[in-house]
């Protein structure tokens, strides 16, 4: 009956309770949608980085990653590629040769990471072709084509079809150089691509390196929902002599951003729930203080103070949580709708894309986020109930009945 009593007490002042319940609905909706919107930003950044830079995973010779020594190539690249292609979770695979060297134009020279790619594979794995802002994708020039980032091109003061010379050590340790023509200029978000990378055809690079078929890096993409850590472990088990790393191992920044999503939501929950808690406490205090006589009579009749405390707690819990499902459902519906349709921020796309976001964002909230919000509401309700309940049990029946 305590629960019945508490429930009916909630509806004693319908208008007043409706205001609090309405505030909870709006608050929870704001939390779910706000959390999902923030997630969409971070997920967009992470997805962009995975798609254009790190991919879902990479494979190297264990020694290669230490100082990019070109002698350390993947032992059996064809077998690795075949293994990856057989895996249902793997979508595309790209092979690369990599060497650090110098790039020189007629006017400038600078250090550069030279990446030898298979143009078709690279287009599928990192969508390198989609970053092209000028020229063509490894075509349209006589001789060895090279793609440069916009800033690097500016630094070297070169344009499409300009000649550049790449200088580096071959596999024997001898200095070698090759003449290349700028086939295209890339406009990339990533500083690595924009300022310090030169993309060439893998065979051209391997010829200069003096090793046919050398592969220093294999990158692969996976289907959405794939557990990239688990897959990396499986590949590692199959090729124990190589180093297999998922994007989480390759980019600690992305992991930090992923963790930041959860932390941001927690901060948002605390702020909104704190504001709502004051409203709940205020309403419940009013409810308790205007029922001084009633509570006093209940104690006089033989209701233990612990039961009165419980009744006020249940009442607060009802008041706080009755709007919860509505707010959550409204938030879920909004997120589902916008999650499919996307939020088009193309008016700000230039600014967004320059910092690694896409112009259309897709709000997303994880089940753990929903659970965190539910826990936040329950904790708020519990904490908000303590003071009014404490006020209620301090009443002396004799004073309460007298109306003091």
């Amino acid at each position, binding site marked *: 009956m305590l629960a019945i*009593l508490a429930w009916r007490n909630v509806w004693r002042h319908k208008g007043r309770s409706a205001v609090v319940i309405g505030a909870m609905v709006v608050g929870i909706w704001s939390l779910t949608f706000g959390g999902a919107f923030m997630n969409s930003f971070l997920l967009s950044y992470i997805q962009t980085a995975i798609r254009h830079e790190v991919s879902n995973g990479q494979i190297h010779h264990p020694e290669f990653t230490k100082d990019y020594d070109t002698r350390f190539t993947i032992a059996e690249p064809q077998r690795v590629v075949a293994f990856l292609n057989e895996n249902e979770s793997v979508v595309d695979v790209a092979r690369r040769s990599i060497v650090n060297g110098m790039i020189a134009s007629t006017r400038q020279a600078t250090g550069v990471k030279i990446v030898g790619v298979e143009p078709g594979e690279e287009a599928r794995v990192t969508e390198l072709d989609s970053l092209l802002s000028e020229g063509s994708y490894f075509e349209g020039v006589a001789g060895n084509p090279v793609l440069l980032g916009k800033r690097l091109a500016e630094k070297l003061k070169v344009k499409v079809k300009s000649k550049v010379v790449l200088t580096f050590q071959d596999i024997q340790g001898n200095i070698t150089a090759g003449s290349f023509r700028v086939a295209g200029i890339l406009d990339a978000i990533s500083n690595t691509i924009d300022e310090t990378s030169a993309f060439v055809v893998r065979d051209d690079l391997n010829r200069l390196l003096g090793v046919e078929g050398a592969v220093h890096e294999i990158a692969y993409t996976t289907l959405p929902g794939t557990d990239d850590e688990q897959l990396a472990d499986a590949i590692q088990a199959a090729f124990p002599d190589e180093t297999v790393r998922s994007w989480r191992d390759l980019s600690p920044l992305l992991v930090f951003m992923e963790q930041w999503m959860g932390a941001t939501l927690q901060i948002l929950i605390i702020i909104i729930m704190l504001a709502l808690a004051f409203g709940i406490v205020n309403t419940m205090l009013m409810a308790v203080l205007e029922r001084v*006589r009633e509570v006093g*009579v209940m104690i*006089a*009749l*033989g209701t233990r103070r612990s*039961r009165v405390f419980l009744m006020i707690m249940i009442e607060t819990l009802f008041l706080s949580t009755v709007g919860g499902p509505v707010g959550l459902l409204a938030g879920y519906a909004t997120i589902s709708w916008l999650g499919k349709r996307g939020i088009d921020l193309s008016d700000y796309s230039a600014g967004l894309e320059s910092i690694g976001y896409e112009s259309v964002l897709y709000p997303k909230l994880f089940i753990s986020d929903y659970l965190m919000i539910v826990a936040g509401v329950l904790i708020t309700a519990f904490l908000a109930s303590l003071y009014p309940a404490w006020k209620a049990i301090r009443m002396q029946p*004799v004073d309460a009945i007298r109306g003091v």
Partner: protein
Amino acid sequence: MASLITATNISKVYHKTSVPVRAINNLSLEITEGEFTAIVGPSGCGKTTLLNILGGLDQPTSGTVTINGVDISRMKDSELIDFRLRNIGFVFQAYNLIPVLTALENVEFIMLLQKRSRKERLARAKELLEQMNIADKADNRPGELSGGQQQRVAVARALASNPRFILADEPTANLDSVSTENLLDLMARINRERNATFIFSTHDERVMNKARRLIRLVDGAIVSDEVRP
């Protein structure tokens, strides 16, 4: 007859103002089972304070109150709450029913606190409302009942816990004459039929006329104690 309530040299002094107020002044009193007693006197004479002390709602500054041999004047708050639940029924001037519960639920409430089964609660609550001639209002909330009807529900609630005695503080103060007569007749009948002990505080002549014992208070002390045949 065995003594039900024994108050011995009780005093109650309030220190809420700079001058202490002595509401009850060295008062001794015995109530036996089955009495239909009215405590009367002018406003401020200490009627309500005495009733509160006898009912364990307030504690005397000095002196002792024993109920059925148990000293309640030094009990802890939690012990007193349980004691009141098992031994004392209350009827208040302003009825003080729980407004969100129906008449039936108000009567049931106290039995719920006594942890009686739902079946037993329902049966007893219905029976009591019938005795109070208000069974047809069982599903109505207090706001939908007249003052007289509410007070009859309050009496049913007081009886529901099978208390050793019922304290009624000015029970007819807010009632019209017809409701007062009805209520007094009902309480007198219950007193006769069940040997239930009633103690009223009142300055209503009609209550005084029905009472079989009249204790008159002035300035917190008994000035007369009249037992009627």
